[in-house]
């Protein structure tokens, strides 16, 4: 319970600074160095990590494969309210990055706070295709590291959210291929 309260407080503080516009530049990427003593998957986290790895691989493949000429320009019906493929990918990366923080241990959160590396904003600006691929990879790595380092079953809701959210947006991206008469990588033989 204490953990949940602390998490909520951290989230409120972080969101507060985001709303106030205090954070002008995008936060640094989370520390992706392997843990000093890497933890082994538990019976509970193993299927979670496997599923996240699965969606991660598919998402990264799309991030690398989606055509350059459509990457940050194509929107269904040209609707400005609908995300481009790049925006979807960066949205997934932003949410994952945030979840990677939320699902970390208190000690890791404190360290990130102290280092000024809390991912305050879930919005990541588009720079390039290569940068998008890197951001997607980093974000999934951050989530996996958080789960491995903090395999507390109380975080199950958060782990499931990452799976559900990433899967939904992967479904969007596959249809973007189809709407352009293309076969998505996962359906190629």
């Amino acid at each position, binding site marked *: 319970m204490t953990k949940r309260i602390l998490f909520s407080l951290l989230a409120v503080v972080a969101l507060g600074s985001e709303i106030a516009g205090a954070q002008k530049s995008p936060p640094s990427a989370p520390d992706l160095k392997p843990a000093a003593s890497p933890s082994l998957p538990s019976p*509970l986290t193993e299927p979670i990590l496997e599923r996240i790895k699965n969606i991660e691989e598919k998402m990264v493949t799309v991030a690398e494969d989606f055509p350059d000429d459509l990457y940050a320009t194509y929107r269904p019906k040209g609707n400005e309210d609908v995300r481009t493929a790049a925006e979807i990918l960066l949205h997934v990366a932003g949410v994952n990055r945030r979840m990677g923080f939320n699902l970390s241990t208190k000690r890791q959160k404190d360290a990130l706070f102290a280092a000024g590396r809390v991912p305050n904003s879930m919005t990541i600006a588009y720079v390039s295709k290569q940068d998008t691929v890197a951001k997607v990879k980093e974000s999934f790595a951050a989530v996996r590291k958080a789960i491995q380092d903090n395999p507390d079953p109380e975080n199950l809701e958060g782990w499931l959210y990452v799976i559900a959210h990433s899967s939904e947006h992967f*479904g969007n991206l596959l249809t973007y291929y189809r709407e352009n008469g293309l076969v998505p990588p996962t359906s190629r033989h």
Partner: protein
Amino acid sequence: MSNRSVLRGLLVIVVAMGSTFARTQKSPRETSEQHASMISASDLTKPVLKEIQDIEERTVAIAEDFPDELYNTYRPKGDPDVRTAAEILLHIAEQNESAASLIRTKPQQDALIASGRKWAAKDILTYVSKPDTVTKIKASFVAVRRAIEENPDPKKLEWWIYVIAHSNDHFGNLVTYYRENGLVPPSSRQ
């Protein structure tokens, strides 16, 4: 409550916490395994069922709302290799029923078959009508939730997760079908 009782209570808590901290440091894996074995089945299934209920509601909303004239005719670029909205929904229903079969224990599954509530993939996947599709989708999510409730064995976590990932994946397809037809999906309406 007297001050003495409060102090005694605090002392008990402090001693108990001290003994907890004094234990040998466990690896995250050991801690997780012990924690997993200690937490109740309902603690584990509650967030899973919540997530399934969430995607169930969003999927049923689309099954009921997707325009009749596009329901089983619209395919991106008219490609016959790509599913219509109805076919996606029936595919989700069929996969949910399959997953429910795998989540149940063998005696539970046998009892279900003996009671005559056996389903065939072909029957589920055959498009009949929009109301029939809605019924099949609803029944499939109910089957999954009931299977988890009746057999909350964490060893089945892989299949619980599969339902969440698979349904969300295809929900993402359906949302884009709306957008490609210049429509706003139910989940994005104010």
